[in-house]
């Protein structure tokens, strides 16, 4: 069998049922082999969308995603998607075609140093020079992408290596047993838990990545410690759970940020003290001792020195931690603040008010409907105002903050959940970055409901220029946007447009009742802001607040 055939075998063996890609010269042998592949190939209309769709497919399935592209521009177009997976620790295998080995290094047509270009954004990469090396790379790549802290792996395959004979894949090796946690560290952590008065859990995306959701929820139920989450940790505990104080950080909820500033023990689980979460790091959780649990030793002490580091399996760690009784006054104070926020309600407006609409939509959707979003104001409104019951239902580009993520992510999520509706919340800036994928949705007849919030501007940049750059607006005007509803129709999708708050129930009904793809264009007021907001360089308790709720 030739190398291309072995690539197909390797993908099939890993249980991947859908790959995303775009053909071209150097990868033609693989596209020839794909004709007989036992899995589906989805043709996106840009390689970046292929990588982002594969990323979301991986998140939604909890396993590896695969994307394919040809050499040169095909591969360079993948890079944003690979970086997105790297920053959010998503297991992704990217297979790129490369020019033949005889012309490598000669600046041949569509030759670029993919290995070198992707080096800073991969967990590992391979450039096999012959069939033996290709088989070895395929045997390794999927396990590397999955194990420990997940991440992307690139295999850059020269065209002649795809055409040459390659040895068959060897039987998969049994995974290494998890290392036992050092019992002394666990004992130390339990001592701090016993002596604290105001414990708080700060949970991130690592919980779901480690398949530790059940252990996490059991830990919360046993200890009754209140929880704040990062953007990627939303859904670790249902957003409406009694102990969930919401998202922390720059656009975090007041209840979450104040609890962090007041706690005396912060139990950090699968989170990494990202600057968007901590605000001014030196004043983050100033009174707290820190127990930091993570699978990645490089995260422990990287930004905040922990009192106790627990490196290893999160499920194992959480099962070993103990707290007999919690100070009821502390929990009560935290939860009261959260309740006050819920009770406050939304302002009445004549315009459509995105936070209110998202909250109502969330209540109308089934609990297991995945929501993807793009990057900007709407991303924060989704995080703040929708209710999520598992992280795999909230697909958001957290680390890289990739505008253009939402639409391809919805495609990847739809293939990971066949037959299930997917909602894609996007903005007029983000949508235009991968709008060509509307045609992929139409071609595949995917039940994706696109909810576009159109404020004719780059809303979050506009908000920052207004607040922090003395209202000197620079390059944020998108008032010459196309007629989005007509554009969607041109791509073959049913579309509708709305302007008024009175239409909000109609929008929700349209989204929940539609059986196939749907494009809903919603005009919103460009002056609407995301609140609260921690200004840059300020600690999290110095939140600016407006009329968001």
């Amino acid at each position: 069998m030739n190398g291309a055939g072995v690539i197909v075998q390797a993908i099939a063996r890993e249980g991947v049922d859908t790959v995303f890609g775009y053909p071209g010269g150097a990868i033609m042998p693989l596209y020839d082999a794909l004709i007989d592949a036992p899995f589906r190939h989805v043709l996106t209309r840009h390689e970046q969308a292929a990588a982002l769709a594969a990323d979301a497919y991986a998140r939604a399935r909890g396993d590896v995603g695969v994307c394919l592209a040809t050499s040169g521009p095909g591969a360079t177009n993948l890079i944003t998607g690979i970086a997105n997976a790297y920053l959010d620790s998503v297991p992704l295998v990217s297979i790129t075609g490369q020019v033949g080995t005889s012309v490598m290094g000669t600046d041949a047509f569509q030759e670029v140093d993919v290995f070198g270009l992707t080096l800073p954004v991969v967990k590992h990469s391979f450039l096999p020079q012959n069939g033996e090396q290709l088989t070895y790379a395929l045997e390794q790549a999927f396990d590397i992408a999955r194990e420990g802290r997940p991440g992307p792996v690139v295999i850059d395959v020269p065209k002649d290596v795809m055409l040459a004979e390659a040895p068959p894949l060897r039987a998969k090796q049994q995974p290494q047993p998890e290392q036992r946690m050092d019992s002394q560290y666990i004992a130390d952590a339990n001592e701090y838990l016993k002596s604290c008065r105001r414990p708080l859990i700060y949970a991130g995306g690592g919980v779901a990545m480690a398949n530790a959701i059940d252990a996490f929820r059991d830990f919360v139920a046993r200890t009754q410690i209140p929880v704040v989450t990062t953007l990627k940790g939303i859904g670790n505990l249902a957003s409406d759970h009694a102990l969930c104080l919401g998202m922390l950080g720059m656009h975090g909820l007041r209840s979450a940020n104040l609890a962090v500033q007041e706690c005396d023990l912060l139990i950090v689980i699968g989170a990494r003290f990202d600057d968007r979460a901590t605000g001014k790091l030196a004043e983050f959780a100033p009174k707290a001792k820190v127990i930091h649990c993570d699978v990645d030793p490089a995260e422990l002490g990287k930004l905040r020195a922990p009192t106790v580091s627990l490196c290893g399996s999160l499920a194992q760690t959480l099962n070993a931690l103990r707290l007999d009784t919690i100070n009821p006054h502390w929990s009560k104070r935290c939860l009261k603040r959260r309740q006050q926020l819920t009770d406050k309600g939304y302002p009445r407006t004549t315009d459509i008010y995105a936070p209110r609409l998202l909250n109502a939509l969330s209540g109308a959707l089934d609990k297991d409907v995945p929501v993807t979003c793009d990057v900007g104001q709407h991303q924060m409104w989704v995080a703040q105002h929708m209710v999520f019951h598992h992280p795999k239902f909230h697909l958001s580009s957290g680390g890289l903050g990739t505008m253009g993520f939402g639409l391809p992510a919805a495609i990847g999520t739809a293939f990971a959940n066949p037959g299930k509706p997917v909602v894609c919340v996007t903005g007029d800036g983000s949508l235009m970055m991968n709008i060509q994928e509307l045609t992929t949705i139409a071609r595949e007849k995917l039940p994706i409901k696109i909810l576009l919030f159109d404020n004719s501007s780059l809303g979050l940049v506009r908000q920052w220029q207004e607040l922090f750059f003395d209202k000197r607006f620079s390059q944020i005007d998108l008032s010459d946007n196309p007629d989005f509803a007509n554009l969607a129709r041109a791509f073959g999708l049913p579309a509708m447009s709305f302007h008024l708050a009175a239409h909000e129930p109609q929008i929700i009904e349209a989204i929940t009742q539609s059986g196939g793809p749907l494009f809903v264009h919603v005009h919103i007021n460009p002056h609407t802001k995301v609140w609260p907001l921690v200004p840059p360089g300020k600690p999290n308790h110095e939140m600016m607040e407006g009329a968001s709720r």
Partner: protein
Amino acid sequence: MNMTLNLSTNNGYGALERILAVVRYRGYQLLNVQADSSDTKNMAVAMTVSHPSGNEHLLHHLRKLRDVQSAEMKAAPPIRIKEAS
């Protein structure tokens, strides 16, 4: 603060490049590097790096690389730069 690093790695494709990229990205200044890749399977890398805080984070990041089999770090004496006569 200067630190000496001794690494034992697989002599995989691009292994040295990967190591040096991590050193740069994590904010360490490379003062000196020696790599012996005469063995086709393994490579020994010795380098001196500098970082204002002298912390060991670099070690954790290097140990995460697939090619790196072992990595040790210790404080190094300051390197004297020869002045032109």
